[in-house]
């Protein structure tokens, strides 16, 4: 058994395989499939200050090797999470990371402040990249000054590990990464979904109620890998790689490009056991190639 432990800022993860926000609920539903404590961490569904019903149906479109979603951050709000969900998942022996959303800097701050006291929420992931709603903050995530403003504000009120999640819908991802690192991010996760669109030619209508939505799945993996690699060469903080990871080989590619950990997203929908298989596969790869630890392959790409 190779050593799968990785560090993100000052947190130790038992393994580098976590699950992406919005693709694993709050974990509760997935407990019917496997023991969630086997995961390195769980990034829970995006939280907002108030209850959000999300967008109207239809919210999903299948695309070549991927899907579009327009969920629109449906969640019952931070207070409901604290009172009704957190108590059910806080016993898990894995990192629970809250995905924080807002439509103003103040909202981000309010949500974050409430999370400060949850002992088992060991980190937050600042989502400045959700393409679906104003509250998802993509507007924050596509310009440096606003990304700096929100990161800086949260840094002031949050003492634990601060992960900032970047949007791929930008001209220069390295610049964005440097900006949030400078503003105090302890780690950077990327990528969120690419803004896309699907059309029903027969009905001559968009498939999503919101017209455009977020593209995820293997289709975006080449873009995600490229951005991870660019950001790895732009910042010093650890990177959490996301985008189309379906199996252990995909995960290894992200480590080689510079990720210290990865998030499994859309793959959970197709194979709820995907993340466990990925953990096994990483171990198998490390053994086969005689690496002692996953840390040895982070950024090891020979260029």
């Amino acid at each position: 058994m190779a050593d799968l432990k990785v560090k993100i800022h000052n947190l130790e993860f038992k393994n580098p395989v976590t699950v992406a926000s919005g693709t694993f609920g709050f974990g509760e539903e997935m407990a019917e499939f496997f023991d969630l404590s086997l995961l390195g961490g769980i990034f829970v569904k995006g939280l907002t200050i108030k209850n959000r019903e999300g967008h109207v149906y239809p919210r999903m479109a299948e695309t070549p090797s991927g899907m579009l979603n327009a969920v629109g951050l449906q969640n019952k709000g931070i207070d409901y999470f604290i009172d009704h969900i957190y108590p059910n998942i806080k016993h898990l022996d894995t990192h629970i990371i809250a995905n924080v959303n807002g439509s103003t800097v103040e909202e981000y701050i309010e949500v974050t402040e409430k999370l400060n006291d949850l002992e088992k929420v060991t980190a937050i992931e600042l989502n400045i990249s959700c393409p679906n709603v104003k509250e998802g903050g993509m507007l924050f995530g596509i310009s440096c000054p606003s990304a700096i403003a929100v990161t800086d504000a949260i840094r002031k009120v949050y003492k634990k590990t601060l992960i900032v999640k970047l949007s791929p819908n930008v001209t220069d991802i390295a610049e964005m990464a440097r900006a949030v690192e400078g503003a105090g991010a302890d780690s950077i996760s990327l990528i969120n979904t690419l803004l896309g669109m699907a059309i029903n030619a027969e009905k001559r209508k968009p498939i999503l109620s919101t017209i455009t939505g977020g593209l995820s799945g293997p289709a975006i993996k080449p873009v995600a890998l490229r951005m991870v690699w660019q950001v790895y060469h732009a910042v010093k903080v650890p990177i959490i790689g996301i985008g189309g990871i379906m199996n252990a080989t995909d995960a290894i590619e992200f480590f080689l490009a510079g990720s210290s950990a990865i998030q499994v997203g859309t793959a959970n929908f197709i194979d709820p056991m995907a993340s466990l298989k990925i953990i096994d596969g990483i171990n198998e790869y490390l053994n086969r190639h005689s690496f002692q630890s996953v840390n040895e392959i982070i950024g090891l790409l020979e260029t």
Partner: protein
Amino acid sequence: MKVVADHKVVNIQYFSEENYVIQMESPVDIPKIKPGNFAEIKVDNTPGVFLRRPFSILDVDYENKLISFYVKVIGKGTRYIGLYEIGDQINLIYPLGNSFTVSDKDRKVLIVGGGSGIAPFILLGKEMVKNGIEATFLIGGRSQRDIILTKEFAKYGDVLVTTEDGSLGEKGLVTQHSVFISPQFKYDRIYACGPDPMMKAVAIIAQQKEITCEVSLENTMACGFGICLCCVTATQEGNKRVCLEGPVFNSRYLKWQI
């Protein structure tokens, strides 16, 4: 716990080019399946199919570990599943979703199915018999070739049929069947599954007659087990996941534009 496993195809029976029943063998004991539960089928090797496809569980044989589905060909996935060969493996996840209410207070129930919406009603029929509830099945389709499994339904209750072209049973839509205007019309509960307009029409009748009506909704699903929030329907208590809080809903709980 859920079953997530490769199942071996043991039989595919075509009723027409567009309708078939596929039966598979489970490698593990099949857990208790309730009427209305569904499975997510992984359709391998089909260009353009990325996500699983949801199908109601038609029938189970616990002893022989057999599970079957009734599939109507709609697009790529439904066509391809019917092209599997005996012995091929198909990955299934089940049981998913909630189920129809079976109340021993009920005496007589009406079960209305259209198209592939008849699928959950074999298991429901069995439950009715088990609970001594008298079931009437009302099956609708475009024409005779769409009306299948009536012999099977007849085992669990009376079977009424409508076809739009009148080639079998009464002519018209299910909701135009004479049973609804019969003076003897007296049911404690109505169940409906089929195209949205059909379910809405049935729900309206139920509401007028002040009878509880349960409908099983369809929806585009990315996961099928509650984690993506793609499959919501608007209810009196906000958006609910059709795959987890549904697919069966009391029609009055839904915020349908009826």
